[in-house]
């Protein structure tokens, strides 16, 4: 019984670790290339561009910001439109991808 409880705790541990790692960098890069890179760059924005860099930013921050833009709880003409089509999974992947890039 005790063993089973420990096992299930371990299992939960594994599972949550698994879901945290589930974000796919490859899918994130591909989505970033299609949706974000036009303004923010695939690694960094153009030196002449007025857009904020995303490389190396905290993944959780990027995720919550993107969700706010998508859900229009944070208002921006352009970001509300662009983030509007992203799924939770897309957002997770994109955030993980940019967080991994060197600023």
């Amino acid at each position, binding site marked *: 019984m005790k063993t089973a409880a420990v096992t299930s705790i371990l299992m939960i541990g594994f599972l949550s670790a698994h879901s945290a790692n589930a974000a796919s960098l490859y899918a994130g890069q591909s989505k970033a*290339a299609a949706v974000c890179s036009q*303004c923010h760059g695939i*690694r960094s924005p153009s030196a002449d561009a007025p*857009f904020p860099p995303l490389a190396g930013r905290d993944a959780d921050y990027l995720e919550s910001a993107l969700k706010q833009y998508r859900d229009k709880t944070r208002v921006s003409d352009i970001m509300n439109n662009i983030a509007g089509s992203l799924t939770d999974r897309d957002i997770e992947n994109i955030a993980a991808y940019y967080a991994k890039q060197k600023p």
Partner: protein
Amino acid sequence: MKTTKRQLPKSVILGLAAILLPVAAQATSESPQHIQKLYDENCASCHGSDHGGFIAPGLNSDTLKGRSPTALRSLIMTGSFDTLMPPFFGRLSDDEIRGLVKHLQTTPKQANPAWTIDDIKASIKVYVEDESKLPAKPIYDIDNIDNIIGVAARGKYGRGSGSKAVFINSVTHKQIGEIPTGTAAHIIDYNPANPRWAYVKTDTAEIFKVDLYSMQAVRSVKTGFNGPGLGVSRDGKYIMAGSYVPHNAVILDADTLEPLKTFELEGIDPDGKMVTSDSGMIIGTPFDDIFAIALENAGQVWVVDLKEGFPVTKIENVGRHLHDAFLTHGGSKLMVASYDDSIVTAIDLKDRKIIKKLEAGCVPHVGGGAAVEVDGRTLGFGTNFGDCDKMVVSVWDLDKMEVVKQIPVDGGTESPAAHANAPYVAVDIISKDKRARTIQLIDKKSLEVVKTLDVGGHAYFPEYSADGKFLYVSAGYSGDEVVVYDSASLQKVATISMESPAGIFSHGRVRYMTRGLSPDEMKGAK
């Protein structure tokens, strides 16, 4: 109010607008002059300073007729994905963008602006006064100057700090220098007689004379408003440059960049109509002291002798809408791509006559071309950038001047790369979807596509290093890097970051004339 306006006849609205506009202009400072300046400074380098289009579509009352102003406004704000069109959100105000849309939808294509030999002369800028004080050899480590590879970096906005010519050592894959060009670099050409000089031409028709030894620009000249055409003569004494706007070409002294003679590009097209013409490719050849220039709209190739008065021999009826070309047979034959009739026309530069018109595929864009010797035959490779049902790379036997094979590829293609020492001919797939990330490799012997590489960005303009060991490809548009592969294993070996890289030009080109031929082919010509 809106309903009333809709019911008013057009003339009344125009009259009202004429009265209201000047007032509005004063009130908002969105004057026509201000908007025109915005166009010149943000749009003209790609869309043409005559509003007639260049590497991007024409923006005028005709081409934008019936387009929704709202859709155009959001396109300018966000840019256009899968193209070079950048987002102007944050760079232009919303009022400016609205003003631009209105201006573009009411402005017709402009007449050719004047840019005379005196204007060209007056535009010369000298950055290094005394060239004799330049270092006698490269100030960086390099075994052979042919190992230099130049990349035309466009910069995200086609101008600004990202616009430059970047030079790389193709042995170490490290950047050895960069030349800021202000607007997007488009073509890099090398002086065949003196290895230290390179010439970089921008989308705004400025040419920079670059000292490769000290990696700096020594002079520049503005030869027009838009146009990529650039060639260097075999003796390294002359440059010829041609423009889309205005419709002219000019021969310059390659040393001082002083203009020597201008040419008005006009002639009778294959339909018998007299037209003025964009300048297509310009090429110098190891075969003779001449330049060949394609008159795009007139369908003519002109051969200019580099002697007193620069006399011109005109070859007519070459094709409908010519563009680029490549040389073969020691530079005595020229293969010219013709968009609208989807042919490549072989021209004999000795007799100055058309040899034959060869089937090319769908809208041929040979992008500098490629030719390789396989089992005793010299094969030419022709890319086609049209998106048709039949997407092929054409292979011609350049001795017999006949089609050997049309190799099916994944999409439209723009530029082939080949090297005598490399097993594959690389072509860039440019169709506007995920295929644009890729290049395909054709086996020289089997003439089949054997591999597809996912390069990223908009992958285009493959180029081999002078020794043939490495394949360079631009991950362009938003890819922002040049990717280097081992030519045999096709493993990725390096990346070099830059903003929106495009054309790649190996210094080795001066030795092998057309990519894929061995340097012996050129020697044979003399």
